[in-house]
């Protein structure tokens, strides 16, 4: 409101008792709230009420809610359309089958128009929703490519393997760069370092074809 009144007036020399004031509006508009927060930003930066496990749990819950919501929207489309979109991303049918827990022939039938069970339909929608989330929110530009590359060079585990094992949150955290690749494998399989220790390696022969040989000593 205008401050015209505040600019004028007689200032008495006698001490004046503060008058009763009507409080400021209690209900803030969004902009008033934002300005208030900004004015206290210096204090805010030094205090966090959501720390450690609380923040992680909230973020995990929020990711699950986002995934469920996106899945519900996509599930309204025909399964054949959803599979076509997954195909356009470049996934192999055997990998899609593994992530969905079904056989490749089952996928072929669904592509041909046969309807899967309600749960399988949801799983197809969820897989597409998941790839969209890591692509759109975490800038994984080619989800299919990213998911079939080894997480850590020494172990043959890929995000596809983790997805097939139900470790969606781990993959999400990996895509969001919240955890390191090693931490992702630790979460998925704590024994991976021992399990995949091998004396063999793959090399390319002079004919251009790959072959297996004992690991060369360095």
């Amino acid at each position, binding site marked *: 409101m205008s401050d015209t009144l505040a600019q004028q007036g007689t200032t008495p020399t006698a001490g004046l008792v503060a008058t009763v004031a009507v409080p400021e509006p209690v209900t803030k508009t969004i902009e008033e709230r934002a300005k208030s927060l900004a004015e206290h930003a210096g204090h805010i930066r030094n205090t966090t009420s959501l720390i450690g496990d609380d923040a992680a749990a909230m973020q995990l819950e929020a990711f699950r809610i986002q995934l469920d919501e996106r899945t519900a929207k996509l599930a309204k489309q025909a399964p054949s359309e959803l599979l076509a979109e997954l195909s356009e991303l470049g996934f192999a049918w055997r990998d899609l089958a593994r992530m969905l827990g079904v*056989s490749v022939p089952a996928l072929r039938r669904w592509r041909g128009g046969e309807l899967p069970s309600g749960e399988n339909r949801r799983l197809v929608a969820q897989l597409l929703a998941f790839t969209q989330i890591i692509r759109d929110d975490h800038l994984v530009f080619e989800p*299919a490519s990213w998911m079939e590359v080894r997480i850590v060079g020494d172990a043959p585990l890929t995000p596809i393997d983790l997805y097939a094992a139900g470790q969606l949150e781990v993959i999400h955290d990996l895509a969001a760069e919240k955890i390191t690749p090693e931490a992702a494998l630790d979460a998925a399989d704590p024994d991976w370092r021992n399990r995949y220790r091998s004396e063999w*390696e793959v090399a390319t022969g002079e004919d251009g074809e*790959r072959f*297996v040989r004992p690991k060369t000593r360095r």
Partner: protein
Amino acid sequence: MTLDTFDSADDLYLARGEEVNPHRPLFTGDVFADLVIPGVIEDGMAMIVAHPCTFRAGAVLADRVLVARVVPHSKQGPGSWRTGFYDRMPLPDVSGTGQWVGNLDLVGRAVVTDLDATTRIACLSAFGVNMLQQRLTFHLTRAKIPTETFEEAFSHTFEEAELLEEWTDALVGGGWTITDATTAFEHFLRSESPTWQERLKEAQLRSAVRRACRGEAARLLRNE
């Protein structure tokens, strides 16, 4: 000392019975209902044990391919195959219910033209193929190579087979003959530099190859 094994029979197979796609190219691990194996007296089922590179050069198949006789076997749980029966490849429920095995000592070079798609009764999954290769290698050489290593080394051949199967499905569905579809696939696979076939060997490039392959098949169908 243990070899790798499966959790359930479904882990070993890509398809069985009526689910076997006749458009899938011949591949390691394919099981046929009735096949003559020169040098093997017994009749009956047989499975391809040769590496794909040894019997096909693109669309061109060799005259013969190394196969093994498939015989009935006493029922064994998955754990039994870790520490024994190294000369056999388990094929549980490959034809109805029951235990069969590929006997890796009863091998011979079958005529490729005898490997009829109509008599193919099972195709192995990638894990099944890798497990077969592990057991065959161990049986012949006592070298134990993890199945993951076979996957790393040869998964590109499995990728190629899957792409050809999908390609053939699409083009035959659009009126092409299998021969023409296969020829067109070979032409596509060897195009570009590096070729799409070369790129299949790199995991991070495979999705791009699949997209290009699917796009090319669609383009060919539109141009018909």
